[in-house]
């Protein structure tokens, strides 16, 4: 009973501090200079289609989620222009991406020849902004390390794109397919990518166990569906 009083005070303090911090972040973003925001729109794949068709399906733990970069060697935002009869024209521009590294516990399906067994690492390249750089806050303002410099050196603010919602340390199931990423000044790069919209492709145990997907109301139920539909993996 006595715990309620101090806890309530602390909670109010935390809420108040959060409001102040949130307002400060928004104000900083609004008062700062010229910036760019990029949206990435995905072709989604239904969950059961991923279960049936994903070339690689693994369970594991998220080890790292990289800061957002843009598709050129130095990782900065870029835009290529040319002049034609009607003036300056955008020829091409940057695509944001980040990587998600998973320590593999189990390979449930594999037609790619993915050789990392249990304990090995799988790095996915996700086109779009990292989750914590999406929700309307300026990436430079919170911790500095997350900043993605823009072409004019003022930074990039990503406001709306789908992204992997799992956090470092969380157990996940990932549906993976071989993809490509355009690269400035070079050929397309081969990548391992989420099969479909990232937010529904690297799924955490917590999200699945919350019943977010009717087709598979728990993490275990989804793993069982994969195992039933795809058979035992080669390395088990």
């Amino acid at each position, binding site marked *: 009973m006595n715990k309620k009083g101090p806890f309530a005070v602390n909670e109010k303090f935390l809420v108040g501090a959060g409001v102040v911090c949130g307002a400060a972040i928004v104000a900083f973003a609004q008062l700062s200079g010229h910036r760019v*925001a990029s949206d990435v*729109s995905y072709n989604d794949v239904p969950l059961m289609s991923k279960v049936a068709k994903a070339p690689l399906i693994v369970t594991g733990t998220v080890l790292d989620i990289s800061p957002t970069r843009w598709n050129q060697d130095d990782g900065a935002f870029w835009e290529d222009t040319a002049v034609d009869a009607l003036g300056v024209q955008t020829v*091409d521009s940057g695509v944001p991406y980040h990587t998600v590294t998973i320590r593999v516990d189990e390979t449930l399906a594999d037609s790619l020849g993915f050789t990392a067994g249990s304990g090995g690492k799988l790095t996915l390249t996700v086109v779009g902004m990292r989750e914590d750089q999406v929700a309307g806050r300026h990436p430079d303002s919170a911790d500095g390390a997350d900043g993605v410099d823009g072409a004019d050196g003022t930074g990039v603010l990503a*406001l709306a794109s789908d992204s992997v919602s799992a956090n470092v340390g969380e157990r996940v199931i990932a549906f993976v397919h071989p993809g*490509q990423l*355009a690269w400035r000044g070079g050929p397309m790069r081969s990548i391992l990518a*989420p099969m*479909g*919209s990232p937010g529904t492709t690297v799924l955490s145990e917590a999200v699945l166990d919350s019943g977010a997907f009717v087709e598979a109301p728990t993490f275990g139920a989804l793993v069982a569906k994969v195992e039933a539909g795809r058979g035992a993996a080669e390395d088990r």
Partner: protein
Amino acid sequence: MKRAFIRFALGVSLGAVMAGFGFKAAPAFGYNLMGPKWSASSQQYDPHSLPANWRTVASFGATQWTNVSPSPFNWSVNNNSSNDITRGAIDGAFGVLAVTTVYYSGSTIVRMTMKFDSAENWYLGSGTPGSSQIDANSVAAHEFGHSAGIGHTQSGNCPSCPNRVTMCASYAQGSSCMRSLESDDRSALNALYP
């Protein structure tokens, strides 16, 4: 007894106020606004580098937002505009369909560019796309929403077709229901440019 009377009186008062002012539940909108917006409600885009059939697609996407009422916001073509629409390589087939980039200063959008992935199996017509095709008109309508300053709709407000909100985060292959704006989309634009 006195306390009960007070409660009753409060209830009556509240009921009277609700009736008198035409109380109604707030609509459950799920739209998200990016934050920055254009300073003027008339904006232009440049599709001149696109082939003719893609210029038609861009026009369709822009028109969906121009037609929203009562918002005065509108798009028109200007081949000298720096708001360029292009096609190019993004990530090969599947995955990402388009990238829209909005440039802004403070709370004002100053420019936008839009790129459609040239590797996709696009359907450019106004009929029904094949099950393995991507409906360009649906994606264009979505991207022009971003270009106006609208983010993705909250996932809880994103039902499947036929009522899928155009500004939902992902598109289902073979569908065309995101071509037409839903109430949530129109509310977003009306809120941003009343």
